[in-house]
């Protein structure tokens, strides 16, 4: 197995190191031959499994992911950056030169694309594990699945179901909170509502989300577009279901199109 990083915060690969009880057993079961954050022992491919964290934001990385794909049997993307472009995909809605000038005194030193895009926009991806950050237990299940040659059992239902399981009183119903739980994939453990705040969608769209219906309901008295658009447009901003809904209700966007 190889672990590869593109534009990201390292938090998802850290989840592998956060498997404190399982880390040594995992290392017994598989040979990790490329994991720069954890090991100086690096072997060239081919790899049975490549875990890919991060999004594509530079020309160099656009070429690097092609190489990783070429040498990998299974390519699994981990986290919101790799599966949807991450928070840095907000620049897809902005002006690249303006972003460069805002951060860097010498923009000419920086090489960057105008977009941040998911790995699947560039190469074939065999499995996507969502979350910002991913859930380490889901990651272990994916690794075990690959070892057992079965499909991973990652649920695609919404956060709502996990709130019920956890016994959390619905904050969208009881407190009129704006909560993305109904359209967001479970996996986090439904933590935000349990901590008295609305879900902000960090696991991305659930299976068959009815984003427009939920948005229209919130817009009918509970939130303004100016409040709702940033909620749909954060860590999974470029996930199609969230992007299309956010663009539809964005009062500052003419035709709903983005770069």
């Amino acid at each position, binding site marked *: 197995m190889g672990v590869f990083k593109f534009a990201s915060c390292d938090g998802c690969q850290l989840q592998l190191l956060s498997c404190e009880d399982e880390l040594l057993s995992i290392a017994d079961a598989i040979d990790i031959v490329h994991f720069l954050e954890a090991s100086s022992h690096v072997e060239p491919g081919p790899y049975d499994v490549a875990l890919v964290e991060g999004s594509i934001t530079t020309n160099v990385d656009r070429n690097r992911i092609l190489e990783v794909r070429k040498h990998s049997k299974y390519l699994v993307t981990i986290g919101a950056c790799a599966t949807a472009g991450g928070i840095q995909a907000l620049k897809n809605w902005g002006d690249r030169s303006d972003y460069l000038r805002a951060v860097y005194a010498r923009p000419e030193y920086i090489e960057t694309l105008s977009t941040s895009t998911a790995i699947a926009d560039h190469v074939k991806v065999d499995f996507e594990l969502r979350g910002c950050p991913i859930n380490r237990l889901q990651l272990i299940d994916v690794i075990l699945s690959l070892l057992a040659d079965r499909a991973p059992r990652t649920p695609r239902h919404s956060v709502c179901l996990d709130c019920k399981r956890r016994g959390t009183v619905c904050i969208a119903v009881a407190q009129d909170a704006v909560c993305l739980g109904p359209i967001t994939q479970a996996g986090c453990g439904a933590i935000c509502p349990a901590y*008295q705040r609305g879900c902000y969608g960090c696991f991305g769209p659930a299976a068959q989300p009815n984003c427009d219906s939920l948005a229209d309901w919130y817009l009918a008295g509970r939130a303004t577009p100016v409040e709702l658009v940033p909620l749909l447009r954060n860590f999974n901003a470029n996930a199609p279901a969230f992007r299309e809904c956010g663009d539809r209700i964005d009062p500052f966007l003419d035709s709903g199109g983005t770069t």
Partner: protein
Amino acid sequence: MTGDTTRTIQVAALTRVEGEGALRIYLKDNRVTDVQLSIYEPPRFFEALLRGRPLEETPDITARICGICPIAYQMTSIHALEQALGIAITPEIRALRRLLYCGEWIESHGVHTHLLHIPDFFRCSSSIELAKRFPKEVIRGLRLKKTGNRLLELLGGRAVHPINAAVGGFYRAPRKAELHTLTDDLKQGLQDAIDVARWVSSFEYPDFDRDYEMVAMHHPEEYPMNEGRIVSTKGLDIAANEFEQHFEERHVAHSTALQCMRIPANTAYFVGPLARVNLNPSTLSPSAKQLMSEVGIEWPCFNPYKSIVARALEVVHAFEEALQIIADYQGCSPARVSYAPRQGEGCWATEAPRGLIYHRYATTEDGKIAFAKIVPPTSQNQRQIELDLADYIPSVLGGGDSETALACERLIRSYDPCISCSTHFLKLEINRQ
């Protein structure tokens, strides 16, 4: 190595550091002419993408700068915004914030010490290889780290990108009984941390004492985390809001990370656990203070390799303080101080696991971010690491290029650079002429 006095050494990518970077060393007749620590982590433009966002999202967004120390980004942005909004928090919220920071120091120092750094002292490539020789010690390290994560999960909701910290306080304050479920594990953690500090202080360290200006926060009554003045081993003593008058970020061609320098003299400086321990020995917890005198180091210490001992002492401190905060906790109501948005500007500094971190924000009347400036610890240490390497490399040129590269990586790792915070790290390339 070529036949004449010109040769090139390359290390493809620095390993066991967070994020990605490269090192280029230029040599002429075996004399170092330049060292460039190059951060090729792709830029993610956080300071630009925050503009126009609702201010209450700022801790959620800045957390994503670094998956290893999200609390540092959350705490610093929250405090800076509270300055901008004129919010005064309660002593109970303040204590819970310190507890949250204790969790991050335990987790982050735990990762760096056991998974990234200790393998160097036994010439192992990873903690997995180290575990074959020192199974008990590695398992102890993982256990300690796990307790840090449990603390973060309880108080923050989860360990990576916690969801509970808010401008004004917390979304939900923990119940007393919930916090008390951590006490047994924290007591075990304190004992483990004391054993780790004794173990790492028995390691062999290169002699490499340097004339650093070490910079850290200082508070008269508590070990610095969330609050204090910024002081240095060369006499600096300023309020956090004077930071930009004494420190300035520069953009260099070889890096997507900015480099921060002391102004007006344009000198490098050193932040992190060793700077904190040197400048704050009197406020360490009782067990950490006791160990400080036992570990055979003359304090203040200016050997960067011994940062791991400072890190271990801080883990002892964090466990002991966490236990004290939990023992004293009587609940926290309100969990969050309410506020009204206003046009304002605020800045703040806190101590991330890797060192001083500074944020400044401007807010708009309708509660949006108008401007953001973020100075992470690694951008501050970057120039000092380059200067250290320039002095250190001549002593390690004799052993062949791969040995030179390995020695450089070890020195860099002792700083615990966190490169993904290169909102903006390492391939080694040595050019010899």
